[in-house]
């Protein structure tokens, strides 16, 4: 006999799901509706009314045009490539992070978060200097007498590497939490049965971390298939993504309807891809659903296991080295450039030492006020995002109700809509938007952009909770609240910390939507740097990035003393 659920339990799910839904209805549904309405306009009229008789003209244009279809297909392929690359490089990195002694972990985190701390323009320049004909890679190859590869820049490959670098943290953090949660007992059991390290990874840790991988894959795929700043800087307009097309049509050609339709086609593709990933992971993790026919899960033929035993350790180390190099090399360039006495930031090679850029970053110009705006905004975004996403994640993990799946699709929608399109939607709402206090308006939008990540990460985290602990607490008379406070919350602490950090960093670096909404009194740091790059970038941006990286290492070190970044029983 199962115990009767307490009265009101049926309401728990909807109540938990309500805050995030309300926020998104207030701050995201409106721009999304604008985008949907715009896409049904027959022709572009920048001053025409928003409500017009619907026409499918824009969609017919897109679907009947080989160029648009080609760009859409290439963008999706790019997204898939970036996802595969981040998974391949991110996995060894996440395993490395999990196994790192707790003392060194803050440094490990800092390494992974470096790309997110580095402004998008600065970061892309770093990759340019890495891949350029006289760049680091070719210079390195030259030492071994290998002739330079001159065609690495301005290709899909270059864009892929740049995107993989910046999206790796998302993948690693998604994996970190679930890997961290795998009970050491499982590992001991495998070891006692004679499983090698490689087999343990393949047969136990990988399958158990699939929910985290799912979150990582969805996030990275959607972000990379809607990216446009890095694609523009590294693709040199030889590489086209739909994000770039949306930007060009909406801003340069003032053709918002076509831009909106393109964005919606991408959103649809993104939603379909998400469903596909969820279905695949569900098939590979039959033990999680507990219903339906029991499939085999992930199995490998014997010969392949032997092969993995042989090459696994070496391959793992090589991938880890590649991942670390990809993260750290551009950082080295950023730091070097921040002390470089050069007229513009695009100069390769060191000329002379100077403190000038630090002086300008800290005292000259308006970097300091912009930094403060960004800092406040990011802190508020992190706090609000966690507060909203935590109940939502618990609803997903514990209190499912009819309609929750559809609702959760809505929660993730802002991730699959190219961010440029959110900006375009907001443009039409500027009159309303500017009535809000500037800070509240930016906060509302930043939270919208961050929520999908926060929900994904916390959902994976909530699913890893050990129910036995809660049952134990309940049997000792703990109420629902105190079980949440003393058992679940500490259990999810690493997930919450990762979510808060991630939300902070996304908000801190956001430029695509913010550049549409920034007001005279609220210029965020990335918008300032991006604006500078619209003329010519100076290494001040590099000095700012270096300072941020330094600050993050320090903050993480302090944080690690206050909140442990790992789970209780993993110690």
């Amino acid at each position, binding site marked *: 006999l199962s115990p009767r659920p307490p009265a009101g339990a049926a309401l728990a799910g909807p109540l938990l799901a309500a805050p995030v839904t309300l926020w998104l209805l207030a701050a995201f549904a409106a721009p999304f509706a604008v985008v949907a309405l715009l896409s049904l306009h027959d022709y*572009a009229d*920048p*001053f025409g009314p928003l409500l017009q008789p619907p026409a499918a003209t824009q969609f017919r244009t897109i679907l009947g045009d080989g*160029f648009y279809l080609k760009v859409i297909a290439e963008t999706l392929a790019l997204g898939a490539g970036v996802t595969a690359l981040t998974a391949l490089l991110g996995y060894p990195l996440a395993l490395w992070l999990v196994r790192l002694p707790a003392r060194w972990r803050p440094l490990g985190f800092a390494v992974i978060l470096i790309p997110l701390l580095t402004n998008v323009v600065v970061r892309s320049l770093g990759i*340019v200097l890495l891949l*350029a*004909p*006289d*760049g680091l890679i070719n210079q390195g190859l030259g030492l071994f007498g290998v002739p330079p590869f*001159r065609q690495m*820049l*301005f290709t899909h490959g270059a864009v892929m590497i740049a995107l993989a670098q910046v999206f790796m943290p998302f993948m690693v953090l998604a994996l970190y939490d679930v890997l961290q949660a795998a009970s050491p007992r499982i590992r001991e059991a495998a070891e006692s049965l004679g499983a090698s390290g490689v087999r343990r990874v393949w047969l136990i840790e990988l399958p158990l971390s699939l929910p985290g991988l799912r979150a990582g894959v969805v996030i990275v795929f959607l972000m990379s298939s809607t990216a446009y700043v890095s694609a523009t*800087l590294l693709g*040199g*307009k*030889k590489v*086209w993504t739909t994000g770039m*097309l949306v*930007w*060009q*049509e*909406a*801003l*340069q*050609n*003032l*053709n918002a309807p076509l831009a909106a339709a393109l964005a919606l086609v991408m959103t649809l593709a993104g939603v379909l891809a998400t469903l596909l990933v969820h279905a695949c992971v569900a098939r590979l993790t039959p033990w999680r659903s507990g219903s339906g026919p029991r499939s085999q899960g992930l199995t490998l033929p014997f010969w392949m296991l032997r092969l993995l035993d042989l090459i696994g350790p070496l391959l793992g180390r090589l991938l880890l080295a590649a991942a670390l190099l990809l993260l750290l090399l551009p950082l080295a360039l950023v730091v070097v450039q921040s002390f470089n006495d050069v*007229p*513009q*930031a*695009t*100069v*390769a090679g060191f000329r002379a030492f100077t403190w000038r850029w630090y002086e300008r970053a800290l005292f000259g*110009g*308006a970097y300091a006020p912009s930094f403060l705006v960004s800092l406040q905004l990011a802190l508020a975004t992190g706090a609000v995002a966690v507060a909203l996403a935590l109940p939502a994640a618990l609803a997903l993990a514990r209190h499912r109700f009819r309609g929750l799946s559809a609702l959760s699709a809505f929660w993730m929608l802002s991730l699959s809509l190219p961010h440029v399109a959110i900006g*375009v939607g907001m*443009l*039409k709402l*500027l*009159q309303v938007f*500017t009535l809000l206090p500037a800070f509240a308006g930016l906060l509302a939008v930043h939270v919208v952009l961050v929520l999908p990540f926060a929900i994904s990460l916390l959902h994976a985290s909530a699913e890893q909770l050990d129910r036995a602990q809660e049952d134990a607490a309940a049997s000792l008379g703990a109420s629902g609240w105190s079980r949440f406070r003393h058992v679940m919350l500490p259990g999810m602490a690493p997930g919450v910390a990762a979510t808060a950090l991630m939300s902070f960093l996304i908000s801190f670096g956001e430029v695509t939507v913010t*550049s*549409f909404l*920034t*007001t*005279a*009194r609220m*210029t965020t740091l990335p*918008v*300032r*740097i*991006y*604006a*500078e*790059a*619209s*003329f*010519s*970038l*100076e290494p001040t941006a590099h000095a700012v990035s270096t300072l941020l990286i330094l600050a993050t290492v320090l903050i993480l070190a302090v944080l690690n003393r206050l909140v442990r970044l790992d789970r209780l029983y993993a110690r």
Partner: protein
Amino acid sequence: MPAMTISRRHFNRLILGAGAVAPLHFTRTAVAQPKPGDELVVGVWGGAQERIVREHVEKPLLAKYPGVKISYVLGGTPERRARAYAERGRPSFDVIYLNIFESRQAVRDGVTQAPTAAVENFAHLYDVAKLGGYGVAFNPVTVVYDKRKASKPVTSWKDIWNPEWKGRVAWPSYPGAQGTAGLLMSAKIWGGSEANIDVGFQKIRELKPFAAIQGSQDQLYGMFDQGVADISIEFGSFTRKYAETRNPNIEIANPVEGQAIAMNVACITVGTRNQKLAEEWVNLHLAPACMMAYASDIYYSPTVKNLVIPADLRPKLVLGDDVAKLVDFDWDTVIRSQPAWSSRFNREIAG
């Protein structure tokens, strides 16, 4: 006390009356003088340009009107323009900086005001700088190249088609000031025009394969540094700065056909609540101090005729007769055709 009632007809008449009186608001006498607490919002590019206007426009403006506040919205032209269009009539900007073709279009679309003599220095402007707002700097577009790779100096736009540059051209992306100039000049020098752009597209296609498509001056300079490309079409002004400080091998051509006009334009928005302050802002931008800073710091040429320029700076700028030689276009046609041309460019030239 009897309640105040207004019949519908009476009300309509009132409204009509108000409409008839309304234009008076736009006459000179009705413009309020700036007072402490007023805030002027300026949309401008970041970096060197922001620094120059802060120093040479904001400071003297604050000296003249103590207590007013200047705020900046920084960004690229497309974002700024899209916002100004979205806010037409109720702008959050008072002054925005645009490129030449966007500025003329913005006046026609009722987003920004046509220039008037209310700005004192308007009188000193070259005629071409009096259209679509107040031209504040010429930065014409021309051929720039690595002189080590050239068998003889480039003297004509047609030189880009010399076989020696095959595969070494970084073509500028369209739309955008440089890409627009590249396309229009290609059509013009090979017998076409704005109205017959096909010639231009065909000639540009002949140049394929491109070493790269460049999307900004910063990107092009990186390409020159790295030897990715040897010739391109770019603003001569800042490229000269680049050549002097970074890459002495780069030469800025002065083609016989003339350089293609490009201009930064200061535009006062329609509906600004700070008309007088905005005009004072533009006036100070056109004043000698700011013009000289632009000319000496980033080699943007003055749009006013009353500036005395030191002899050593003169050869680096576009002045006097050279201004008359700048190639201008029918921007109406250009703007109207932009969506079609950019779609064609994406398909035939880039990618």
